[in-house]
């Protein structure tokens, strides 16, 4: 059994809406090993985003324990959480969240601005390397409005990679993309997972996307419904090769 990068024990998250209490997570427990590619599935409102926010240290659980890479997250201050996000986590959002009117390069550089140990030269080098990894080395100066949706998401992935995090968290990262572009993104994810050994937690509600991961946690009403290892893991590269390029009309 490889090292556990992430352990959650009986995580609960309640939202207080006036007098009403919304129980988004009602006690979720699982581990993620280093180098694993995990998808979290579930119907809308099942608590996927809430869980991912907690895993990404953007939110704190109401109850339960969360250990990330050996550190208990529960006791950390806001600033320590920010540092953790900067050093250990790369986020990819459904809406890309790139800065408008800002070049791809500068967008990717962004996380490094909040890491004072990195010089301006290193920052640029690392950003270019990350953009090369997502095959956008020829689009450094393009602003988001000059890029396609898939390219924008790849910039966002490069931004998630640039600080060399131990894990990448993606919330419906393919939700706004057509299926071909989705497969391209998944092929990129698989490559990062297999070649760079990045741990990936990927939220989706599309089963064909989940099929590219090694394991799927199914949520329902804030609880783990199923936690299954995916025996017949598909290669996104192969799937891409099998569909004709002239799919569109």
């Amino acid at each position, binding site marked *: 059994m490889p090292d556990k990068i992430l352990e959650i024990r009986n995580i609960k998250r309640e939202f207080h809406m006036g007098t009403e209490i919304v129980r988004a997570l009602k006690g979720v427990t699982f581990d993620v090993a280093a180098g694993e590619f995990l998808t979290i599935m579930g119907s809308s409102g099942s608590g996927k985003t809430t869980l991912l*926010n907690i895993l*990404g240290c*953007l*939110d704190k659980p109401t109850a339960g324990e969360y250990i990330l890479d050996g550190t208990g997250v529960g006791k950390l201050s*806001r*600033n320590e959480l*920010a*540092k953790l*996000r*900067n*050093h250990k986590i790369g*986020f990819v*959002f459904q809406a890309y*969240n790139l*800065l*408008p*009117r*800002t070049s791809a390069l*500068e967008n990717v550089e*962004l*996380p490094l*601005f*909040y*890491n*004072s140990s990195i010089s301006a030269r290193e920052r640029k080098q690392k950003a270019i390397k990350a953009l090369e990894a997502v095959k956008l080395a020829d689009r450094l100066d393009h602003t988001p409005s000059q890029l396609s949706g898939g390219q924008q998401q790849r910039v966002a992935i490069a*931004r998630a990679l640039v*600080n060399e995090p131990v894990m990448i968290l993606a919330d419906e990262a393919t939700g706004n993309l057509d299926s071909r572009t989705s497969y391209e993104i998944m092929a990129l994810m698989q490559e990062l997972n297999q070649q760079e050994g990045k741990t990936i937690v990927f939220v989706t509600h599309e089963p064909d996307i989940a099929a590219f991961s090694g394991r799927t946690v199914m949520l329902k009403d804030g609880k783990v419904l199923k936690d299954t290892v995916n025996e017949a893991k598909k290669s996104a590269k192969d799937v891409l090769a099998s569909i004709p390029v002239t799919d569109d009309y």
Partner: protein
Amino acid sequence: MNVMNLIRIALRALQRNKLRAFLTMLGIIIGVASVIAMVAIGQGSKKSIQDALSSMGSNMITIRPNSNVTAGARLDATSVQTLTIDDVKALQKQAQYISFISPAVSTRGQAINGALNWPTSMQGVSPQYLDIRKWHVKEGNVFTEADVNTAAKVCLLGQTVVNNIFAPGEDPVGKIIRFNKIPFNVIGVLEAKGENAFGQDQDDVILAPFTTVQKRILATIYFQNIYVSATNENTTKLATAEISDILRRSHRLKPADEDDFAVRTQEELINTFSSTSQLLTILLTAIAGISLVVGGIGIMNIMYVSVTERTREIGLRMSIGARGIDILLQFLIEAILISITGGLIGVALGITASKLVTTFLSWPTLISQSSILLSFLVCGMTGVFFGYYPAQKASRLDPIEALRYE
């Protein structure tokens, strides 16, 4: 997080919205420019008044008659008559701190030379008057004590009078002119002195022995003024006290009586006029300062809009590791950059405006370093003060809610 990075982030954010940044700056630019121009104009006029007054001789002392309370109804200073030749003699004999003394009595009238005539005033003075005023004759000679004793009909002409009653190139010295029908022998011409601090032409005057004016024109024994010059600039205070003492004795005033004369030093005059122009400067600066505050409110307004507009950006920055303080500083630095840049442009504009005022309106201006420094400081503080609350609002956002903001 180092500050250089934050400055870079703030600069990039401003670059993305150049026009808006400039429009926000405009308030500050106008505020600073007007502060600097107003202070420059105020200081300039103050300095020119001071210069003009001290060019008259900063150790000059003026004695005027003053209304006496015991006389019942207070009278206008010019109609009060208390100064006589006895006072001049007493001062000449007893005062130690006085180097020159001249009584003065003046009257208006028509100066005529042949077919040319000119309305002007004649000042009856003693020869020492020119020493007190630091004035010289350009041609001819000054009248003498003998002329004073005999009430001689001799006079010195100011340049303006010469220009108006003599043809160009004609030498006035030795000619006879008439003033109020009385013939006067022109024995000298005064060098041109130009306008005084209040815009009066100092050359529009005829000087004659005071006895002549008193006896032959006004038929009076009183003076309107006595001008005195202290031995030097440091003895003006002593001289003033001494003069008061001597005049009180000479006028036989009892200890309880108020002075029936007033002694003014040039310094007091300077202070009087300085304080008026100071008040004006303060007023103008206050108005300009208000526009600076309005500019600051403009910054605050735009920063609030900017924070709301960039809520998602703030959420994103937090999700990739920005701490609250990083966000706070980013927005604060943006506000400060706007105000400081506005300040710089404002300083440049203010200096240019002051120069233009001097060039085209020929108003004196004096750009003081302190006003530049002050408005710069105020700018920085405006940035911090008005930028802080929006920045704090940004830093306190919840990252998840900020990311979800539409």
